[in-house]
């Protein structure tokens, strides 16, 4: 009886059901708690929020402040521009790398793919500290850059050192470094599946190599670009560690704001409102990605 149940629907139901159960317990329920908290009122009790009683049941001040307080608006703008910058740079660096990976022979390809994911073998924090060491004013790297700058430009523009640390540039640089594999891998998976005879067909029909890339390779790699772009953009927009360590503390990113509201300011409802707003901002791009993915899969099934 049980054996038969397992044979028929049981296994597939369980295999499909388990991840959903996981998401329900560890994602959806906590998220609903956060949404609930975002409508609460800050109190000096523990936990530091409350509903009802002397407070309103639904308090919208948190959301109102999102649109009025420039701290939040600036944080969102900084987050989105930094994440967009990192995404575009990752694409510009990652696309040629992914394309190159598809053009080398099999033996080399596996070695190069290994190198792409090699940075994950060291602690992320350690790698960010390494960047801090490189970018700091007294590092050999900064001295080298400063020397080169002072040698290239007129004397009036000379600097004591190149300001790298605690800038948005540093944040974008380290984010590009950190998230580059997330751009390369989906792009590579996409480009690797493309039929090389299509390139030959385009060439045969009169297209020079650049036109072949523009007309054939690029349009077919859009699902890969979108997947890679989302995988970089979404975590980059909510990034906390990188801007905290190398960023400009006067222009914080949204992750830093959420963290500060929760811990030092102990304003949980406000922190929750910011988190919900960030999620809503991210849902848009994720839906675009899901739509492209569904369409690509439908096409594959038809073939």
């Amino acid at each position: 009886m049980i054996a038969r149940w397992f044979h028929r629907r049981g296994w597939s139901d369980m295999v499909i059901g388990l991840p959903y159960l996981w998401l329900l317990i560890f994602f959806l329920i906590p998220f609903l708690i956060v949404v609930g908290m975002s409508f609460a009122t800050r109190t000096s009790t523990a936990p530091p929020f409350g509903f009802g009683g002397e407070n309103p049941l639904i308090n919208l001040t948190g959301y109102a402040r999102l649109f009025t307080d420039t701290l939040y608006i600036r944080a969102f703008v900084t987050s989105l521009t930094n994440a967009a910058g990192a995404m575009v740079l990752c694409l510009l660096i990652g696309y040629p790398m992914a394309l190159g990976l598809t053009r080398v022979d099999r033996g080399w390809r596996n070695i190069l793919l290994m190198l792409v994911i090699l940075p994950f073998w060291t602690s992320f924090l350690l790698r960010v500290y390494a960047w801090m060491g490189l970018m700091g004013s007294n590092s050999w790297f900064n001295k080298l850059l400063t020397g080169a700058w002072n040698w290239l430009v007129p004397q009036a523009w000379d600097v004591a050192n190149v300001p790298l640390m605690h800038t948005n540039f540093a944040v974008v640089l380290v984010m590009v470094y950190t998230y580059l594999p997330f751009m390369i891998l989906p792009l590579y998976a996409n480009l690797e599946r493309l039929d090389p005879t299509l390139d030959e067909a385009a060439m045969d029909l009169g297209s020079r190599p650049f036109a072949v890339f523009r007309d054939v390779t690029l349009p077919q790699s859009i699902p890969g670009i979108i997947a890679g772009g989302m995988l970089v953009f979404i975590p980059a927009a909510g990034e906390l560690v990188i801007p905290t360590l190398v960023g400009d503390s006067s222009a914080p990113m949204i992750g830093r704001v959420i963290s500060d509201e929760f811990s030092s300011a102990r304003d949980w409802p406000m922190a929750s409102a910011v988190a919900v707003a960030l999620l809503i901002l991210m849902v848009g791009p994720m839906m675009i990605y899901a739509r492209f993915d569904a369409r690509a899969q439908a096409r594959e099934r038809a073939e």
Partner: protein
Amino acid sequence: MSEALVRIEGVSKSFGAFQAVKNVSLEIEKGEIFSLLGGSGCGKTTLLRMLAGFEAPTQGRIFIDGVDMAAVPPWERPVHMMFQSYALFPHMTVEKNIGYGLKHEAMSSADRAARVREMLDLVQLTPFATRKPHQISGGQRQRVALARALARQPKLLLLDEPLAALDKKLREHTQFELMSIQERTGVTFIVVTHDQEEAMTLSDRIAVMDQGVVRQVGRPGAVYEFPNSKFVANFLGSINAFEATVSAIGAQITVDVPALGQTVQARAVGGVSVGQSVTMALRPEKITIHRTPVEGANVLAGEIKDLAYFGKDSLYRVALPSGALVSVHAVNAARASDDERLADWYDKVWLSFDAASVLLLTD
């Protein structure tokens, strides 16, 4: 005689130590359908790719319309290719696929659209113009590929196994369609195929290739009836081949065939001398099967060892007293009931054939 459209002069191609094409020279006339026929790995596709410009010859030269192609990249050659996989652009509609090559022509967009319509009409795909390749059938995709390759009016169209991906019924139909399109457009076709029937029906001329070498070039009938080697005879259709020695040359040539245990008369040909070893070859359909003894020089007596009934014809394997097996192909012209076949298992039969049908192969 006019200058050939394609002249291949002593072309060789090596991939590392492997020599895919060995010193091939061919001339292909304007307006003909020319087939490169051979098994897999014979170099036919490599030769085609060299014509398209995807591979450069290691040695030798290729001229198209009198121009040396050595320094001409694929995108500048007056040659288009229909790929075996069709290589349609999956993200473009049928219309866009067909019009793709026209983007590089200096023509107005109205002219371009008119040309696309004309091509859609030629391959009868007008109702499918706005579909994507994955939304049409295999046969339709094949026609899109053909229309795309013909749209820019190439001087030469290369077709790589054009019918291989189609099922049998569709293949026959498409064969005739290809021929009629070729006739209407007047474009020279070079077809690569491993299918001898396809090559025979489509082509004006065939080049039979083996291990990178062209073994024989000629009209289908000439290559079939007068193969110059055992390989070609075997590759195009089937053949009975036996080792033989020339024993006398007169009005006819007499060869002694030990495997048959007797001599055979063949039509006189040049290039053989008494005592020379040759291969005596005979097509199965050139042999007549009799149930009663017949008189004549080229008669063999034997017993039916095996038979295969195909409906319109039958294949018999006849065992001779010497132990040799001879294949005979006979058309089932008379409508026989089951118990009165032309011949049955273990029947004693007599085989006869003309001296003119006997091939003497020295290679």
